[in-house]
C-alpha cells in the first residue's frame, strides 16, 4: 500500500529535496529550467509522501501518545548514545503537509517569479535545501537532530536572504538574521546540553517519561532554567520580542523566500519546537506564563508597528511577527491545539499574502511602497481576489481560515487570563486595520503613478496557480479544521471543543469589521485624513513609524557594551599582551644588537676574544689545581 510505504520511508521526505539540492548545486546549476524541474519534481514526491504519511497516521491510529518511531544509532561517544530517526505523530503529519505544500507551491511560483534571474539554478538549490532542512526538523526524533536541522534552517535563511549578495542591504540583512537567531540558538544549545547532562538522553519520547517524574521528585528549579533556555531558541527563530528585529529585514531576499520563511519553514520552527517539547513546558507554570506574555506582547507590539509601515513586505513581516506572537500566546495559555491550528491556517494565508505581494511588486517593477501603487484591482483581478481572501483570512472574518483559529486562541486566552484575552482582541482589531489599509491602498483608489500603472499586468500562470491553490486553502482550511475537529484529530491531550463561544466570536468579528470600516473611510473615501490622525497621535505615530527605535536602541546598546568591552580588551591587547610580546621581542632584539656588535667582521677581534677565552680557561685550571688542590 502506498501509505504504508510512505510511513516506512518517511525519511525520504527530507532526503529528496536534499538530493535535489546536491544535484542542482553540483551538476545542473547553470541550466535554470532543468534545475527548477528537478526541485519541483522532488518537492512533489515529498508532498505525495507527506500526504501518504498523513493518511497512514489517520488509518493506523497513530497518536501523540503512541507515535511511530524509527531510529538508528548515529554515534557513540563514551556513554553518550546519539540516534537519528523519524518520529511521526499527528503533529508531525500536520507539519509535513503544511511545509511540503507551501514549499511546493512556492517553488512553482518561483518558476515564474525568478524568471530571467542569473541565479535561477542556485535559487532552486537553496529552496530545496531549505525545504529539506525544515522537513528534517519536523521529523526529528530527539533534540540534537532537531538542533542540527534547526541550524541548517538558519543557514538556508542566511543564504536566501542574502541571495542578492551584490546588494549591500541584502548582505547586511542576511548577517543580521544569522546573528540574531544565533543569540537564540545559543540559549537553545545550552538548554539541550543541560538536558543531556541531567537526564542522559535527548530523545523526545524518553524525556516525556522522565521529566514529569523528575519534577515530582526534584521540584521545578532546574527544569525552569532548562525550559527558559530552550525557549530562547524559539524567541530568536520565531521572531519574538526582543529578537524580532531580523524578520522585517529578511525582506531583502526574493519574495518567494519571504513567503517560505514567514509561512512554513523558518519562523514556525520555533513554535514547532515549543509544541514538540510541550510535555516539558506544560509542567512548569511560570515558564508557560513567560511564553504567554512574550507571545501576547509580541503580537501587540508588532501590530502597532505594522500600523505605520509603508513597504508592502514590511507590513506583512510585522504581521507575521504578530501572528507568531498569537501562536506563542496560545502555547503559553496551554492550548497546543489552538496554536497549531493557527500555525496551519497562518501558513496558508501568509504564504498567499506574500506571494500576492510578490506578484504586485513584480507588476510594479519591484516598487515596495504601497502609497506608490493604487488602483490595481482592475489591472490584476486574480491577484486582487486572492489577496482579498488572504486579508479577510488574517483579519478573522468568518468563514475564512483565520477566523476559526484566531477564535480558538482568543477562547483559550480568555479561559486563562483576561488581560491576555483583551490584549489579543485588541491585536486582532489592529491586525484587521493594517491589513485593510494594505489592501485598500494597494488595490483601490487612484493610481499614484500613471506610468507604472500602465505597465502593471497580471502575473504568469506559474505564479497565479499557486495563488489560487493557497487562496482555496485559506478559505477552507479553517472551516475544515473546525468541522472535523482539528484538535480531536491531532489529539494534543485536550480534545477540540466543537462549540464556538458566541461572545468571543461575535465581538472579534465586529471589531474586525469596524477596523475595515475605519480603514475604508480613511484610505478609500478619504473621509478622514490619515495625515491629521498621524499628527494627532504625534509621538505614538513616530514611535510606531520608527519601529519603537528597537534597532537604534540595539545599536546604541551594542555601541556602549560591545564597544566598551572592546575598548577594554583593545587596551589590554595593545598595552598588556602586545606589551609583553613587544617587550620580549625588544629584549631579544636588544641582546641581539648588543651581541651583533661583537660580530664586527674583524677577524683579529675574534682572535683576541679567542685568546681571552684560552687565558681564562687556563687560568681557571691553574687556580683549580694549585689553589683548590683539585685533580684534573
Amino acid at each position: 500500500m502506498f501509505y504504508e510505504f510512505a510511513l516506512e520511508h518517511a525519511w525520504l521526505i527530507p532526503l529528496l529535496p536534499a538530493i535535489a539540492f546536491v544535484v542542482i548545486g553540483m551538476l545542473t546549476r547553470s541550466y535554470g529550467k532543468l534545475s527548477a524541474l528537478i526541485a519541483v519534481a522532488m518537492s512533489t514526491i515529498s508532498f505525495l509522501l507527506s500526504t501518504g504519511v498523513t493518511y497512514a497516521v489517520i488509518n493506523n491510529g497513530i497518536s501523540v501518545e503512541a507515535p511511530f518511531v524509527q531510529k538508528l544509532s548515529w554515534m557513540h561517544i563514551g556513554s553518550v548514545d546519539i540516534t537519528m530517526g523519524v518520529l511521526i505523530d499527528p503533529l508531525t503529519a500536520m507539519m509535513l503537509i503544511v511545509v511540503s505544500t507551501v514549499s511546493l507551491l512556492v517553488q512553482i511560483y518561483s518558476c515564474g517569479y525568478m524568471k530571467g534571474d542569473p541565479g535561477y539554478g542556485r535559487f532552486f538549490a537553496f529552496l530545496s535545501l531549505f525545504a529539506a532542512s525544515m522537513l528534517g526538523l519536523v521529523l526529528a526524533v530527539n533534540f540534537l537532530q532537531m538542533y542540527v536541522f534547526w541550524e541548517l534552517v538558519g543557514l538556508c535563511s542566511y543564504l536566501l536572504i542574502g541571495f542578492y549578495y551584490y546588494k549591500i542591504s541584502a548582505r547586511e540583512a542576511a548577517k543580521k538574521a544569522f546573528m540574531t537567531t544565533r543569540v537564540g540558538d545559543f540559549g537553545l544549545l545550552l538548554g539541550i546540553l543541560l538536558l543531556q547532562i541531567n537526564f542522559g538522553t535527548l530523545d523526545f519520547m524518553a524525556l516525556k517519561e522522565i521529566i514529569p517524574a523528575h519534577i515530582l521528585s526534584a521540584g521545578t528549579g532546574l527544569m525552569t532554567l532548562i525550559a527558559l533556555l530552550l525557549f530562547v531558541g524559539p524567541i530568536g527563530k520565531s521572531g519574538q520580542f526582543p529578537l524580532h528585529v531580523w524578520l522585517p529585514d529578511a525582506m531583502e531576499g526574493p519574495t518567494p523566500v519571504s513567503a517560505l520563511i514567514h509561512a512554513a519553514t523558518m519562523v514556525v520552527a520555533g513554535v514547532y519546537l515549543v509544541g514538540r517539547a510541550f510535555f516539558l513546558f506544560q509542567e512548569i507554570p511560570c515558564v508557560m506564563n513567560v511564553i504567554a506574555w512574550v507571545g501576547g506582547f509580541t503580537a501587540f507590539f508588532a501590530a502597532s508597528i505594522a500600523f505605520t509601515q509603508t513597504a508592502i513586505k514590511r507590513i506583512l513581516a510585522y504581521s507575521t511577527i504578530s501572528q507568531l506572537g498569537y501562536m506563542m500566546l496560545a502555547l503559553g495559555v496551554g492550548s497546543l491545539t489552538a496554536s497549531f491550528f493557527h500555525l496551519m491556517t497562518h501558513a496558508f494565508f501568509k504564504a498567499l499574502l506574500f506571494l500576492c505581494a510578490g506578484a504586485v511588486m513584480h507588476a510594479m517593477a519591484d516598487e515596495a511602497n504601497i502609497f506608490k501603487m493604487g488602483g490595481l484591482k482592475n489591472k490584476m483581478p486574480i491577484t486582487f481576489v486572492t489577496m482579498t481572501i488572504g486579508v479577510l483570512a488574517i483579519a478573522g472574518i468568518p468563514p475564512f481560515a483565520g477566523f476559526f483559529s484566531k477564535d480558538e486562541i482568543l477562547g483559550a486566552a480568555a479561559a486563562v487570563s483576561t488581560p491576555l484575552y483583551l490584549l489579543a482582541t485588541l491585536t486582532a482589531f489592529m491586525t484587521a486595520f493594517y491589513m485593510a489599509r494594505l489592501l485598500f491602498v494597494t488595490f483601490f483608489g487612484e493610481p499614484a503613478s500613471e506610468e507604472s500603472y500602465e505597465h502593471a499586468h497580471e502575473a504568469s500562470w506559474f505564479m497565479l496557480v499557486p495563488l489560487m491553490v493557497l487562496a482555496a486553502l485559506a478559505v477552507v482550511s479553517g472551516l475544515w479544521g473546525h468541522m472535523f475537529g482539528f484538535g480531536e484529530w491531532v489529539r494534543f491531550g485536550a480534545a477540540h471543543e466543537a462549540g464556538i463561544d458566541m461572545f468571543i466570536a461575535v465581538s472579534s468579528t465586529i471589531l474586525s469589521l469596524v477596523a475595515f470600516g475605519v480603514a475604508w473611510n480613511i484610505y478609500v473615501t478619504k473621509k478622514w485624513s490619515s495625515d491629521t490622525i498621524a499628527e494627532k497621535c504625534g509621538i505614538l505615530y513616530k514611535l510606531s513609524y520608527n519601529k519603537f527605535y528597537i534597532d537604534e536602541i540595539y545599536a546604541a546598546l551594542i555601541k556602549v557594551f560591545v564597544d566598551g568591552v572592546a575598548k577594554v580588551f583593545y587596551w589590554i591587547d595593545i598595552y598588556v599582551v602586545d606589551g609583553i610580546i613587544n617587550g620580549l621581542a625588544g629584549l631579544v632584539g636588544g641582546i641581539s644588537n648588543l651581541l651583533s656588535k661583537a660580530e664586527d667582521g674583524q677577524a683579529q677581534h675574534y682572535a683576541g676574544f679567542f685568546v681571552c677565552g684560552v687565558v681564562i680557561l687556563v687560568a681557571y685550571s691553574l687556580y683549580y689545581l694549585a689553589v683548590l688542590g683539585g685533580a684534573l
Partner: protein
Amino acid sequence: MTIGLNHCLLLAAMLFAIGLYGVLSKRNIIAILMGVELMLNAVNINFVAFNRFTPVSDLTGQLMTVFAITVGVAEVAIGVALAYRIYNDRQTINVDELDNMKG
C-alpha cells in the same frame, strides 16, 4: 744550571706570545701571516723539546714536527694566495677594512 725542558718551553711560550701579538695587532695581512709562522715555530720547539727532555723511546715528537711543518707550509701557500686575491679584488690588504662579515 743545566738547560732543561722548562727553559725551552718558556722560550717557546715567549715566541708564541710575540707571534700572537703580531697576529692581534698588525694591519697588514702578510704581517699577520708572519705572526702565525712565528707561533707555529714556537709549537715546533715545544714538540722537539718534549721529545728531547722527557723519558720517551722514539722520535714521535720530531715526526709530529715534520707534519706540523708540512701543514705550516701549506698554510703559508694558501695564505699568500688569499692575500694576493684580496689585494687584486680590493686594492688593499688592510684587514681592518675586511669586515664583510659584520653582524
